[in-house]
């Protein structure tokens, strides 16, 4: 009977392909939009993940996301070092500054100043030079990935900023002494690393310049207890990496409308896919109602018919999902290779499969209601 069910399904090629195409389309939309959303979410925390040597970040309570600069007093570093359970505490400068490339092209950068002594919080992977080169005169490190997009000398139409180039940051000279590789970030501006002291010399004078204090907790100590102690001692907010990543993602997704837009796209994908697949499958069942009636007359039980319809729905669901997942992954691979946001953790395919199964299940249930209500005597109505 299973073979009969499958042959019934595949008998009308046009409808069969339409069903699979509808489900594949829905799957692809769900996978793609969800993966782009997750990709964006991950990218919002890229800077925090790249600065992962620390356990805790001390910051002003008004800070809303990782690039939101609300400086705190320099003495915070000393206060933190005095808290029991703190292995080390170092300052981190971060701020948006203007720069001029050798050809005069102006650009905005995120300048990060690392603790002069330890260079803690530096980029995760050095491509050219050594991190200690940052201590050399006027030294900065630029990102090695896609400088032609972020650090292009546009005025002469020439080349991107490169190792050895001299340029200016806020009218102070800087020399590219190294390049690094980092995670793709949600923020467009290039991140340029230097030492904390030099960063302060580049930055316009402010009463307070310290953006964050990075804290490492001693091995074996309770991170949450140390966090609480730091909050009491400094009167500032202290967050773990995960908390800071979540806070940043939360702020960006909610304030930019990305979450709503992508959420709507996913919902639309499910709805359109449901309508296409559900309607086609329902029509398919209606078209075959006479045959189901004949089978009922010949002694096929309702239970058997349920299994046949479920087999048909399951077949189109698996085939449609597989094709949609393949297309979605392929497109995602292309998108990701361009450096755009795309991340597909296993939960997304699982969610898509669940959604598609529910859609097909719903369509099958609606169809089955007609099959159940069908009088086998319908077969005698010419």
């Amino acid at each position, binding site marked *: 009977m299973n073979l009969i069910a499958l042959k019934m399904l595949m008998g009308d090629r046009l409808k069969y392909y339409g069903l699979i195409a509808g489900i594949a389309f829905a799957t692809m939309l769900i996978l793609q939009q969800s993966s782009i959303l997750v990709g964006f979410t991950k990218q919002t925390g890229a800077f925090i993940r790249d600065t992962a040597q620390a356990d805790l970040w001390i910051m002003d309570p008004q800070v809303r996301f990782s690039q939101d600069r609300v400086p705190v007093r320099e003495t915070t570093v000393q206060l933190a070092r005095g808290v029991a359970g703190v292995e080390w505490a170092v300052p981190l400068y971060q701020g948006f500054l203007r720069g001029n490339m050798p050809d005069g092209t102006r650009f905005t950068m995120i300048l990060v100043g690392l603790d002069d002594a330890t260079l803690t919080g530096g980029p995760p992977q050095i491509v050219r030079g050594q991190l200690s080169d940052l201590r050399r005169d006027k030294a900065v490190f630029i990102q090695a990935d896609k400088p032609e997009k972020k650090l292009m000398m546009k005025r002469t139409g020439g080349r991107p900023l490169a190792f050895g180039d001299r340029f200016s940051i806020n009218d102070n000279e800087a020399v590219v002494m190294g390049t690094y590789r980092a995670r793709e970030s949600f923020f467009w501006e290039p991140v340029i690393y230097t030492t904390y002291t030099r960063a302060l010399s580049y930055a316009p004078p402010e009463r307070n310049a310290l953006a964050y204090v990075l804290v490492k907790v001693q091995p074996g100590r309770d991170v949450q207890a140390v966090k609480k102690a730091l909050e009491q001692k400094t009167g500032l907010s202290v967050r773990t990496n995960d908390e800071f990543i979540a806070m940043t993602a939360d702020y960006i997704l909610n304030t930019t409308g990305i979450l709503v837009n992508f959420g709507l796209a996913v919902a639309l994908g499910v709805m359109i896919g449901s309508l296409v697949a559900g309607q086609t499958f329902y029509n398919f069942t209606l078209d075959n109602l006479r045959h189901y009636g004949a089978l009922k007359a010949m*002694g096929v039980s309702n239970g058997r018919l349920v299994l046949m319809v479920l087999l048909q729905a399951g077949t189109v669901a698996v085939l449609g999902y597989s094709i949609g997942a393949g297309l979605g992954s392929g497109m995602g691979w292309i998108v990701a290779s361009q450096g755009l946001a795309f991340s597909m953790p296993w939960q997304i395919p699982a969610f898509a499969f669940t959604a598609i199964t529910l859609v097909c299940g719903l369509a099958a249930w609606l169809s089955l209601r007609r099959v159940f209500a069908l009088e086998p005597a319908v077969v005698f109505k010419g």
Partner: protein
Amino acid sequence: MRTADRLAVDCRAVTKTYGEGETAVLALRGIDLEIRAGELMMLVGPSGCGKTTLISIIAGILDRTDGNLHVFGADVSAMKPSARTSWRRDRIGFVFQSFNLMPALTATENVAIPLLIKGSPRKEAMARAEHMLERVGLANRRHALPAQLSGGQQQRVAIGRALVHEPQLIVCDEPTSSLDHETGLSVMNVLRETAAAEDRALVVVTHDARIFEYADRIARMDDGRIVTLEGGTRASAEAYQRVASPAAAQHA
């Protein structure tokens, strides 16, 4: 008792009402009918007289409103729906006016359906279906889809499907109405040759006077009743002229 004396179908005061209250339609008004094993009974009469309702009840695919029905001793009217489904699967063969072949299945697969429903292994079912196709003269068309067969060939596949699981009762609804005269007679020959046996019975609903000669008895129905029953020996077209409606007789 000889098989031929056995009652295949025993209808007693069977009534059927569609709807309720003022909109109720009395489709059968107390049918008493006996069909003997080995007999080919034809039900004739004008459209809406209750023929299709009666064979639907006899075949167990429609509930009667009142009365008793026994088919080869089984009390069909007392069966629960699930038991009736199993009974139909094992004991009834169907031949439909519009053939009702599965368009995506080959002739062999269509014929094998009743065996597959009964749970026969696929290989065995296909072998028996091929044998049945030989009996109905379609051995060389066993791989053809219904759309590749003529109307007569399709009906012969449908007859093969109705007989392959060796049912006791075969009900045929207008088996020749979609066919030309020659093909209709050929289909009736096949039906008569393959289905006629002392341990089974055929009930044929028809308007087609050209096939009356194949009947052992003809029951003429009108307005939910059997008005005449021409019986005893195989009825002829002339005999039908005495029992059929004037219009049908003229057609005959």
